[in-house]
């Protein structure tokens, strides 16, 4: 398991646009944006829909079901705060609702044994006191 609250891990920069995203995670919900004009769903937070450019959108809570698009395993630390976590994984995850994001896969022994398109389940974990969306394998939800 990845240790909590390791000193020096760079935490997300929060602004007016992304504050609801992080606040919702702190509250146990993972949210994304959905366009009020065309219905497109997206992350990360942005002010206009990247499909139709409309500025009318709302937050929606994700089901927590997702799948693994790809992943890497760091054997070199590119930031000193991660040196004592090697090897660690970083993954691209696609929510059932469509948006994709960078995340980590938790609760696994061997990251090289993962498979692309593996069903995943949201696991909100804390890093430096901030709630972030990680995922665990969820073989039953395919």
């Amino acid at each position: 398991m990845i240790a909590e609250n390791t000193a020096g891990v760079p935490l997300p920069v929060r602004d007016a646009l992304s504050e609801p995203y992080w606040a919702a995670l702190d509250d146990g919900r993972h949210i994304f944006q959905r366009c009020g004009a065309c219905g497109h769903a997206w992350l990360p937070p942005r002010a206009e829909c990247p499909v139709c450019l409309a500025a009318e959108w709302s937050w929606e809570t994700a089901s927590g079901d997702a799948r693994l698009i790809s992943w890497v395993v760091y054997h070199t630390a590119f930031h000193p705060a991660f040196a004592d976590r090697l090897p660690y994984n970083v993954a691209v995850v696609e929510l059932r609702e469509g948006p994709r994001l960078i995340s980590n896969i938790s609760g696994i022994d061997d990251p090289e044994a993962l498979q692309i398109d593996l069903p995943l389940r949201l696991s909100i974990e804390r890093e430096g006191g901030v709630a972030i969306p990680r995922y665990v394998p969820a073989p039953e939800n395919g």
Partner: protein
Amino acid sequence: MRESVVVAGIGHTTFGAHEGRSTVSMHAEAIRHALADAGVEKDAVDGLFVKFPTSAFEFMYGQKVAEAVGLQPRIGGVWDQGGAANIGMMSFAALAIEAGQCEIAVVTFADNPKTGSRGAIAKSIGADDVFGWFGAAAGYAMIARRHMAQWGTTADQLGAVAINARANGAANPRAQLRKPLTLEGYREARSVVAPLRRDDCCLVSDGGAAVVLMSAARARALGVPAPVPILGFGQGQTSWNVELRPDLTSTCAAESAQTAFAMAGLGPDDIDVAQFYDCFTIVPIMTLEDYGFVPRGQGGAYVASEGTGLDRRLPMNTSGGLLSETGMPGMQLVIEAVRQMRGTAELQVKNARTAIVSNQGGIMHTHSTLILGQPA
């Protein structure tokens, strides 16, 4: 536009370390060599297209270079396309020459990531630092993993790209890394960001390189020794960050190549030698696919089975590329293609009449393609 603009001159600094030297100084040396190669007086240059150093952004950098070489160009500046910029700017320079906006253009690049700032290598890739998402290598590893899982591409096939580059680099006295690589050596090297190992990753290099462009008519009038015609060029932009990109294993390099092929009136079968941007080994494999040299998903099998050596159907990265000659982002590939067309390459491909060059930047965000032909 076919054959209307030529590469009249090429020049570069040594590749490797330039401790304590400014990037502007390396531009000046590269431009000096390129002008001498073309036999052109500096004061005839009226277009100056500059790729800014990736390691450290500098505002109004094109003007700093213009000042250092004493030019007041009619048209010029910096265009940010990351590693696609050198061919991108050659394209803009060719368009400017065609449109009468300038007559003799210099396109120039310099950077010092080896002895200067290493910020470009380890920087965060967006707003996801909290997940440990850092470094360009990881972005390419993410793409490579998906390509391997989706198309059956193997580590040994990635290794074949590195082994070819290192064999060619070993034969190139200008190359920064002249140590050939075996498959065993490739397999045993440490993992950087799995699935990418040490030898999948490009060199880190200081250096500068420049080319001189003008119309074919002007080159004839000036008596330029071996003007190499630009037959085609194209660009494409995949744009989405890796995590948002709907398809990780194909890119808009396809559009870039299609545009260049259409302009040249040529197709993949007509190309004799390729210089493909190889910052990481997965890139030439995907370029072979996106450019239409092989069917989608077959790039890995092609480099390992058919091979890309000097005696193969499509000799690739004949001076060693970013993996062996120098890690500079792309201009060395253009220069090697020019030498192949002149018949002056270290590892010359016999009877090569056409050359294709790919540049790309970011993590396969931007793409540019150049097709060169025989000197008249």
